[in-house]
């Protein structure tokens, strides 16, 4: 066993990678099949406002992130359904406003904001035990919710209109899904950061989609891939002495690229 595994920071990092991988694989699968990638990007960037507020007022940035992510997610759900603002315009507004709030709050925090960079781009090697506990709780909520509403989420994702006819509360489930995306983003922020979250949510499920044709299969494979890519990314970043979050994202992107290339070289799936 490499000696580095004996260090507590490395144990924390690996635990964080596993927790982030589970959340990303499960929720990312819905994000990819429902084409909610841009919404997720908007929520994640809006989360920066919460981090900034927490740094300014001196409470846990993760708590600030949870509050802002959930508020942004609910805001998205309501704004796009109840107003004439188009969905992508709404996302753009949310995205930039959240970031701007974060910048202003961080500025008010009187210069001392050492963590800012690590929230934007992730620094998995500095994850605290308390943050791990928080990630564990968020993961439990995410997995329990998906298990409880699996068939309804599947139905609403595939055919929302029919689901409504079949008596499924589609509107409420959409908000629940947005909330799950928000919690996933918070879980992943410490690993790859606000700016790069979208990669870990999109890339593992996209790779998994190439090899699976059921939602369940896609989710399980995406979880395995997200965990493996995060762990390998950490190892690589440690070996090369480069930032961990970006390394995980680049590794994931490279694997997806290779998979797509391999699929192209071989003849397409038989119909």
């Amino acid at each position: 066993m490499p000696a580095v595994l004996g260090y507590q920071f490395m144990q924390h990092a690996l635990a964080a990678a596993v927790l982030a991988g589970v959340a990303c694989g499960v929720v990312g699968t819905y994000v990819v099949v429902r084409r909610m990638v841009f919404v997720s990007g908007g929520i994640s960037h809006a989360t920066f406002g919460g981090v900034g507020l927490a740094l300014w007022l001196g409470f846990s940035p993760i708590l600030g992130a949870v509050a802002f992510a959930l508020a942004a997610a609910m805001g998205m759900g309501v704004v796009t359904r109840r107003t004439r603002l188009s969905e992508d315009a709404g996302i753009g507004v949310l995205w930039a406003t959240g970031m701007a709030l974060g910048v202003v709050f961080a500025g008010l925090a009187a210069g001392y904001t050492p963590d800012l960079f690590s929230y934007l781009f992730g620094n998995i090697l500095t994850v605290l035990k308390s943050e791990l506990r928080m990630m564990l709780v968020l993961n439990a909520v995410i997995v329990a919710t998906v298990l409880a509403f699996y068939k309804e989420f599947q139905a609403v994702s595939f055919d929302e209109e029919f689901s409504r006819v079949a008596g499924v509360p589609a509107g409420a489930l959409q908000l629940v899904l947005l909330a799950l995306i928000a919690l996933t983003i918070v879980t992943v922020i410490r690993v790859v950061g606000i700016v790069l979250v979208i990669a870990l949510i999109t890339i593992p499920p996209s790779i998994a989609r190439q090899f699976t044709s059921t939602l369940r299969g896609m989710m399980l494979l995406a979880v395995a891939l997200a965990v493996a890519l995060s762990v390998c990314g950490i190892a690589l970043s440690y070996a090369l002495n480069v930032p961990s979050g970006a390394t995980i994202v680049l590794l994931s992107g490279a694997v997806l690229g290779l998979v797509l290339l391999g699929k192209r070289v071989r003849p397409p799936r038989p119909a």
Partner: protein
Amino acid sequence: MEHRHSHADGAPAQAIIRLSGVSVDYDGLSALEDVDLTVHRNDFLGIIGPNGGGKSTLLKVMLGLVPPSRGEVRLWGEPPQRSAHRIGYVPQHSVFDREFPISAWDVVLMGRLSHTHLLRRYSPGDHAGAMQALDTVGITSLKHRPIGQLSGGQQQRVFIARALVRNPELLLLDEPFANVDTTTEEEIFRLLGQLKERITIVMVSHNLSAISTYVDKVACLNGRLYYHGSREIPPEDIEATYGCPVELLAHGMPHRVLRRHD
């Protein structure tokens, strides 16, 4: 449901759907104008009309998905939301994502959602129902296939099975013959012909050829609804609906629906 087969002798058939003065406006644009329509039990009604003529909207009004701007909708004498569990719905083919990772089996099971509960798994009864519905549409062997890998006709059968698994008393079909070859079209018609013995069917299509011998009654829809409670359509209705001379339409129609002119 219990009195489905108890067609009282001589008594007028029960009104399943009753629309009175229904109008729907989307952002000031009128999709449906003052539509009156009564569908009786065991009717097989075909509604034809051009694209954008309000056909899907009409079905969505019946399903309670679109509230009418004016007028009243009643299914079995009640607001449509209360009757959703009695309806089987086959939506327009174009609305679904072919890339979605789901098997034909899981799509069919969706039809049982209103018969099961949140937090519960599908029951053995749901599974038996799904198996029977797949058998009815003749694609039992394809149940594990991803929906995106099925042909247009096979996909349409899956969606019909999903509607049938609900044991509906009323079947609403939106453009069931889009993306379907003529052989499958004929087979689906034969299936609907069997189903109409026990289910009331309303089908909309932009294609006049969809009105075959299996359909009992025909209406024309282009914002306004032209309906005489029969299978024959007066030429002037077609003209009003499609806005072009009847002669053009009458030729090349595989099934004659117009009155003979002689």
